[in-house]
Protein backbone atom coordinates (compact mmCIF):
# COMPACT_ATOMS: atom_id res chain seq x y z
CA UNK A 1 0.00 0.00 0.00
CA UNK A 2 1.31 3.39 -0.95
CA UNK A 3 1.87 5.97 1.76
CA UNK A 4 2.25 8.84 -0.69
CA UNK A 5 -0.25 11.62 -0.05
CA UNK A 6 -2.94 12.06 -2.67
CA UNK A 7 -3.33 15.44 -4.28
CA UNK A 8 -6.73 16.60 -5.46
CA UNK A 9 -7.02 19.62 -7.72
CA UNK A 10 -9.85 21.91 -6.69
CA UNK A 11 -9.53 25.47 -8.08
CA UNK A 12 -11.73 27.02 -5.42
CA UNK A 13 -11.81 30.80 -5.29
CA UNK A 14 -11.51 31.80 -1.64
CA UNK A 15 -13.86 34.77 -1.97
CA UNK A 16 -16.41 32.93 -4.11
CA UNK A 17 -19.32 33.85 -1.80
CA UNK A 18 -18.44 37.53 -1.89
CA UNK A 19 -17.80 37.50 -5.64
CA UNK A 20 -21.13 35.80 -6.36
CA UNK A 21 -23.02 38.21 -4.15
CA UNK A 22 -21.20 41.19 -5.71
CA UNK A 23 -22.19 39.94 -9.15
CA UNK A 24 -25.84 39.62 -8.04
CA UNK A 25 -25.73 43.15 -6.65
CA UNK A 26 -24.18 44.50 -9.85
CA UNK A 27 -26.95 42.92 -11.93
CA UNK A 28 -29.57 44.26 -9.57
CA UNK A 29 -28.05 47.77 -9.75
CA UNK A 30 -28.04 47.66 -13.55
CA UNK A 31 -31.65 46.44 -13.73
CA UNK A 32 -32.72 49.24 -11.38
CA UNK A 33 -30.75 51.84 -13.34
CA UNK A 34 -28.71 52.97 -10.34
CA UNK A 35 -25.05 53.85 -10.91
CA UNK A 36 -22.93 52.71 -7.97
CA UNK A 37 -19.70 54.42 -7.05
CA UNK A 38 -17.45 53.30 -4.20
CA UNK A 39 -14.79 55.39 -2.51
CA UNK A 40 -11.61 54.03 -0.95
CA UNK A 41 -8.73 55.86 0.73
CA UNK A 42 -6.68 56.03 3.88
CA UNK A 43 -8.34 57.50 7.00
CA UNK A 44 -8.39 61.29 6.96
CA UNK A 45 -7.91 61.80 3.24
CA UNK A 46 -11.17 63.71 2.96
CA UNK A 47 -13.57 61.05 1.66
CA UNK A 48 -16.53 62.28 3.67
CA UNK A 49 -15.95 65.97 2.89
CA UNK A 50 -15.64 65.08 -0.80
CA UNK A 51 -18.73 62.87 -0.72
CA UNK A 52 -20.70 65.61 1.02
CA UNK A 53 -20.01 67.92 -1.94
CA UNK A 54 -20.61 65.20 -4.52
CA UNK A 55 -23.97 64.32 -2.96
CA UNK A 56 -25.03 67.96 -2.87
CA UNK A 57 -24.02 68.52 -6.49
CA UNK A 58 -25.36 65.30 -8.03
CA UNK A 59 -28.47 65.63 -5.87
CA UNK A 60 -29.60 68.73 -7.78
CA UNK A 61 -30.65 66.76 -10.84
CA UNK A 62 -30.50 63.17 -9.64
CA UNK A 63 -31.86 60.96 -6.88
CA UNK A 64 -28.87 60.09 -4.71
CA UNK A 65 -28.10 57.97 -1.66
CA UNK A 66 -25.03 56.89 0.29
CA UNK A 67 -23.86 54.01 2.44
CA UNK A 68 -20.95 54.87 4.65
CA UNK A 69 -18.69 52.37 6.37
CA UNK A 70 -16.77 52.94 9.58
CA UNK A 71 -15.57 50.77 12.42
CA UNK A 72 -17.68 52.79 14.86
CA UNK A 73 -19.84 55.94 15.27
CA UNK A 74 -22.65 57.40 13.19
CA UNK A 75 -20.74 60.67 12.70
CA UNK A 76 -20.15 60.40 8.97
CA UNK A 77 -23.76 59.51 8.21
CA UNK A 78 -24.96 62.45 10.31
CA UNK A 79 -22.63 64.72 8.36
CA UNK A 80 -23.69 63.40 4.97
CA UNK A 81 -27.39 63.71 5.80
CA UNK A 82 -26.94 67.45 5.53
CA UNK A 83 -26.29 66.89 1.82
CA UNK A 84 -28.67 64.02 1.01
CA UNK A 85 -31.71 62.55 2.74
CA UNK A 86 -30.91 58.89 2.14
CA UNK A 87 -27.75 58.05 4.04
CA UNK A 88 -27.07 54.97 6.09
CA UNK A 89 -24.11 54.17 8.29
CA UNK A 90 -22.65 50.67 8.25
CA UNK A 91 -20.67 50.10 11.42
CA UNK A 92 -18.33 47.18 10.91
CA UNK A 93 -17.16 46.73 14.51
CA UNK A 94 -13.64 45.41 14.17
CA UNK A 95 -13.79 44.65 10.46
CA UNK A 96 -11.46 46.85 8.43
CA UNK A 97 -13.36 46.78 5.12
CA UNK A 98 -16.84 46.53 3.61
CA UNK A 99 -17.90 43.36 1.83
CA UNK A 100 -20.78 42.62 -0.53
CA UNK A 101 -22.93 41.17 2.28
CA UNK A 102 -22.68 44.40 4.29
CA UNK A 103 -23.68 46.43 1.23
CA UNK A 104 -26.64 44.14 0.58
CA UNK A 105 -27.78 44.42 4.19
CA UNK A 106 -27.32 48.20 4.14
CA UNK A 107 -29.67 48.44 1.15
CA UNK A 108 -32.46 46.35 2.67
CA UNK A 109 -35.02 49.07 3.24
CA UNK A 110 -34.22 51.08 0.14
CA UNK A 111 -35.98 50.99 -3.19
CA UNK A 112 -33.21 50.99 -5.77
CA UNK A 113 -35.70 51.83 -8.52
CA UNK A 114 -36.00 55.28 -6.98
CA UNK A 115 -32.29 56.03 -7.19
CA UNK A 116 -29.90 57.30 -9.86
CA UNK A 117 -26.66 57.29 -7.90
CA UNK A 118 -25.60 55.24 -4.92
CA UNK A 119 -22.29 56.09 -3.26
CA UNK A 120 -20.56 53.61 -1.00
CA UNK A 121 -17.85 55.03 1.23
CA UNK A 122 -15.56 52.25 2.38
CA UNK A 123 -13.79 52.10 5.74
CA UNK A 124 -10.67 54.28 5.66
CA UNK A 125 -7.98 51.74 4.79
CA UNK A 126 -5.63 51.37 1.82
CA UNK A 127 -5.10 47.64 2.19
CA UNK A 128 -8.08 45.50 3.12
CA UNK A 129 -10.86 46.91 0.89
CA UNK A 130 -8.89 45.94 -2.22
CA UNK A 131 -9.81 42.24 -1.92
CA UNK A 132 -13.58 42.74 -1.87
CA UNK A 133 -15.82 43.41 -4.85
CA UNK A 134 -18.89 45.35 -3.70
CA UNK A 135 -20.80 45.19 -6.97
CA UNK A 136 -19.96 48.80 -7.76
CA UNK A 137 -19.64 50.15 -11.30
CA UNK A 138 -16.86 52.59 -10.49
CA UNK A 139 -14.21 52.42 -7.78
CA UNK A 140 -12.64 55.75 -6.87
CA UNK A 141 -9.41 55.90 -4.90
CA UNK A 142 -8.67 59.16 -3.07
CA UNK A 143 -5.34 60.57 -2.02
CA UNK A 144 -4.88 63.90 -0.26
CA UNK A 145 -2.11 66.44 -0.71
CA UNK A 146 -1.25 66.03 2.99
CA UNK A 147 -0.18 62.44 2.35
CA UNK A 148 3.07 61.48 0.67
CA UNK A 149 3.48 61.51 -3.12
CA UNK A 150 4.64 57.90 -2.88
CA UNK A 151 1.37 56.53 -1.46
CA UNK A 152 0.52 54.87 -4.80
CA UNK A 153 3.89 53.09 -4.76
CA UNK A 154 3.40 51.97 -1.16
CA UNK A 155 -0.14 50.68 -1.77
CA UNK A 156 -0.07 49.55 -5.41
CA UNK A 157 -2.85 46.98 -5.00
CA UNK A 158 -5.58 49.43 -4.02
CA UNK A 159 -4.56 51.89 -6.73
CA UNK A 160 -4.32 49.16 -9.32
CA UNK A 161 -7.80 47.89 -8.49
CA UNK A 162 -9.46 51.31 -8.75
CA UNK A 163 -10.95 52.91 -11.87
CA UNK A 164 -10.19 56.57 -11.24
CA UNK A 165 -8.14 58.53 -8.74
CA UNK A 166 -9.03 61.78 -7.01
CA UNK A 167 -6.39 63.98 -5.41
CA UNK A 168 -8.11 65.86 -2.58
CA UNK A 169 -7.24 68.93 -0.49
CA UNK A 170 -5.70 70.74 -3.46
CA UNK A 171 -6.15 74.00 -1.49
CA UNK A 172 -3.38 72.72 0.83
CA UNK A 173 -1.01 71.69 -1.95
CA UNK A 174 1.20 74.76 -1.70
CA UNK A 175 1.41 74.64 2.10
CA UNK A 176 2.48 71.01 2.09
CA UNK A 177 4.79 71.49 -0.95
CA UNK A 178 2.88 68.70 -2.60
CA UNK A 179 4.54 67.44 -5.77
CA UNK A 180 1.61 66.95 -8.12
CA UNK A 181 3.65 65.76 -11.08
CA UNK A 182 5.42 63.11 -9.02
CA UNK A 183 2.08 61.90 -7.65
CA UNK A 184 0.55 61.68 -11.11
CA UNK A 185 3.62 59.80 -12.32
CA UNK A 186 3.42 57.35 -9.41
CA UNK A 187 -0.26 56.71 -10.04
CA UNK A 188 0.42 55.97 -13.72
CA UNK A 189 3.26 53.70 -12.73
CA UNK A 190 1.06 51.39 -10.64
CA UNK A 191 -2.14 51.84 -12.66
CA UNK A 192 -1.36 52.77 -16.27
CA UNK A 193 -4.02 54.84 -17.98
CA UNK A 194 -5.95 55.83 -14.87
CA UNK A 195 -7.86 59.10 -15.08
CA UNK A 196 -6.91 61.49 -12.26
CA UNK A 197 -8.93 64.41 -10.88
CA UNK A 198 -7.59 67.22 -8.72
CA UNK A 199 -10.13 68.62 -6.30
CA UNK A 200 -10.63 70.72 -3.23
CA UNK A 201 -13.83 70.09 -1.29
CA UNK A 202 -13.22 73.35 0.49
CA UNK A 203 -12.85 75.72 -2.47
CA UNK A 204 -14.76 73.63 -5.01
CA UNK A 205 -11.73 73.37 -7.31
CA UNK A 206 -12.08 70.54 -9.82
CA UNK A 207 -15.58 69.58 -8.67
CA UNK A 208 -17.23 70.57 -11.97
CA UNK A 209 -14.93 68.22 -13.88
CA UNK A 210 -15.58 65.33 -11.54
CA UNK A 211 -19.35 65.84 -11.49
CA UNK A 212 -19.58 66.03 -15.29
CA UNK A 213 -17.43 62.90 -15.52
CA UNK A 214 -19.82 61.07 -13.14
CA UNK A 215 -22.92 62.27 -14.97
CA UNK A 216 -21.35 61.19 -18.26
CA UNK A 217 -20.73 57.73 -16.88
CA UNK A 218 -24.27 57.58 -15.51
CA UNK A 219 -25.82 58.54 -18.87
CA UNK A 220 -23.62 56.06 -20.74
CA UNK A 221 -24.57 53.25 -18.35
CA UNK A 222 -28.26 54.07 -18.70
CA UNK A 223 -28.04 54.11 -22.51
CA UNK A 224 -26.23 50.77 -22.45
CA UNK A 225 -28.93 49.19 -20.26
CA UNK A 226 -31.78 50.47 -22.42
CA UNK A 227 -30.31 49.32 -25.72
Amino acid at each position, binding site marked *: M*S*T*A*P*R*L*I*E*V*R*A*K*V*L*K*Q*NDLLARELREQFRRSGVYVVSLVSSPGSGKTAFLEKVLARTGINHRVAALVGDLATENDAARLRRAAPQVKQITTGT*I*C*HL*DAQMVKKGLEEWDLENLDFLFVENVGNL*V*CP*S*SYDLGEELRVVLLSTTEGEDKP*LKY*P*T*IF*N*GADVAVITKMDLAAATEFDLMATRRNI*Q*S*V*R*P*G*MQVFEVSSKTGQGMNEFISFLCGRFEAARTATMS
Partner: protein
Amino acid sequence: MHELSIAVSMVERIIEESENRGGLRVEAVHLKLGVLSGVDKDALMFSYEVACEGTFLAGSTLVIDSVPLLIYCDSCGAEGAPESMQHIACPRCQRPSHKIVRGRELEVSALELAA
Protein backbone atom coordinates in the same frame (compact mmCIF):
# COMPACT_ATOMS: atom_id res chain seq x y z
CA MET B 1 -5.51 43.24 8.70
CA HIS B 2 -8.22 41.35 6.82
CA GLU B 3 -6.33 38.08 6.52
CA LEU B 4 -8.38 36.51 9.30
CA SER B 5 -11.58 37.20 7.33
CA ILE B 6 -9.88 35.72 4.28
CA ALA B 7 -8.74 32.66 6.24
CA VAL B 8 -12.25 32.07 7.58
CA SER B 9 -13.68 32.24 4.04
CA MET B 10 -10.95 29.89 2.92
CA VAL B 11 -11.70 27.30 5.60
CA GLU B 12 -15.41 27.47 4.69
CA ARG B 13 -14.56 26.89 1.02
CA ILE B 14 -12.32 23.93 1.80
CA ILE B 15 -14.98 22.35 3.99
CA GLU B 16 -17.49 22.84 1.17
CA GLU B 17 -15.14 21.28 -1.40
CA SER B 18 -14.36 18.42 0.92
CA GLU B 19 -18.04 17.68 1.61
CA ASN B 20 -18.82 17.82 -2.11
CA ARG B 21 -16.34 14.99 -2.51
CA GLY B 22 -17.87 12.86 0.21
CA GLY B 23 -15.62 14.06 3.05
CA LEU B 24 -11.87 14.24 2.68
CA ARG B 25 -9.10 13.91 5.24
CA VAL B 26 -7.15 17.01 4.31
CA GLU B 27 -3.55 17.20 5.47
CA ALA B 28 -2.38 20.16 3.46
CA VAL B 29 -3.98 22.95 1.44
CA HIS B 30 -2.31 24.54 -1.58
CA LEU B 31 -3.19 28.15 -2.23
CA LYS B 32 -2.35 30.31 -5.23
CA LEU B 33 -1.75 33.83 -4.01
CA GLY B 34 -1.25 36.61 -6.54
CA VAL B 35 1.01 39.52 -5.65
CA LEU B 36 -1.93 41.84 -6.43
CA SER B 37 -4.45 39.89 -4.35
CA GLY B 38 -4.12 42.35 -1.50
CA VAL B 39 -3.40 39.54 0.94
CA ASP B 40 -0.23 39.26 3.01
CA LYS B 41 1.35 35.82 3.00
CA ASP B 42 2.66 35.73 6.59
CA ALA B 43 -0.51 37.19 8.07
CA LEU B 44 -2.52 34.60 6.15
CA MET B 45 -0.34 31.73 7.39
CA PHE B 46 -0.96 32.83 10.97
CA SER B 47 -4.68 33.45 10.42
CA TYR B 48 -5.16 30.08 8.73
CA GLU B 49 -4.12 28.26 11.88
CA VAL B 50 -6.57 30.29 13.94
CA ALA B 51 -9.40 29.80 11.42
CA CYS B 52 -8.87 26.02 11.37
CA GLU B 53 -9.33 25.63 15.12
CA GLY B 54 -12.39 23.57 15.98
CA THR B 55 -12.78 22.27 12.42
CA PHE B 56 -11.51 19.05 10.86
CA LEU B 57 -8.78 21.14 9.24
CA ALA B 58 -7.12 21.80 12.60
CA GLY B 59 -3.46 20.85 12.32
CA SER B 60 -3.46 20.95 8.50
CA THR B 61 -0.67 22.72 6.66
CA LEU B 62 -1.10 25.70 4.37
CA VAL B 63 1.22 25.76 1.38
CA ILE B 64 1.23 29.13 -0.39
CA ASP B 65 2.38 29.40 -3.99
CA SER B 66 2.99 33.05 -4.83
CA VAL B 67 1.86 34.02 -8.29
CA PRO B 68 3.95 36.80 -9.84
CA LEU B 69 2.45 39.56 -11.93
CA LEU B 70 1.99 38.90 -15.63
CA ILE B 71 0.65 41.53 -18.03
CA TYR B 72 -0.39 41.62 -21.66
CA CYS B 73 1.06 44.46 -23.68
CA ASP B 74 -1.27 46.06 -26.22
CA SER B 75 1.60 47.78 -27.97
CA CYS B 76 3.83 44.82 -28.79
CA GLY B 77 1.40 41.97 -28.20
CA ALA B 78 3.68 40.19 -25.74
CA GLU B 79 2.96 38.81 -22.31
CA GLY B 80 5.57 39.54 -19.73
CA ALA B 81 6.41 40.06 -16.08
CA PRO B 82 6.78 43.75 -15.21
CA GLU B 83 9.79 44.84 -13.24
CA SER B 84 7.65 45.34 -10.11
CA MET B 85 4.17 46.21 -8.85
CA GLN B 86 5.44 49.77 -8.62
CA HIS B 87 6.25 49.91 -12.29
CA ILE B 88 3.68 48.10 -14.38
CA ALA B 89 5.12 48.29 -17.87
CA CYS B 90 5.95 45.82 -20.61
CA PRO B 91 9.43 44.35 -20.02
CA ARG B 92 9.98 44.22 -23.77
CA CYS B 93 8.90 47.63 -25.09
CA GLN B 94 8.68 49.51 -21.74
CA ARG B 95 5.18 50.83 -22.51
CA PRO B 96 2.70 50.84 -19.62
CA SER B 97 -0.18 48.38 -19.75
CA HIS B 98 -3.11 47.66 -17.48
CA LYS B 99 -4.07 44.25 -18.83
CA ILE B 100 -3.37 41.98 -15.89
CA VAL B 101 -3.15 38.34 -17.00
CA ARG B 102 -2.03 36.86 -13.69
CA GLY B 103 -1.34 38.18 -10.22
CA ARG B 104 -4.79 38.63 -8.64
CA GLU B 105 -5.27 34.96 -7.66
CA LEU B 106 -6.67 34.01 -4.29
CA GLU B 107 -7.57 30.44 -4.98
CA VAL B 108 -7.25 27.05 -3.35
CA SER B 109 -5.60 25.00 -6.08
CA ALA B 110 -5.24 21.57 -4.48
CA LEU B 111 -5.92 19.53 -1.37
CA GLU B 112 -3.43 17.00 -0.10
CA LEU B 113 -5.04 14.01 1.53
CA ALA B 114 -3.84 11.71 4.27
CA ALA B 115 -2.51 8.46 2.85
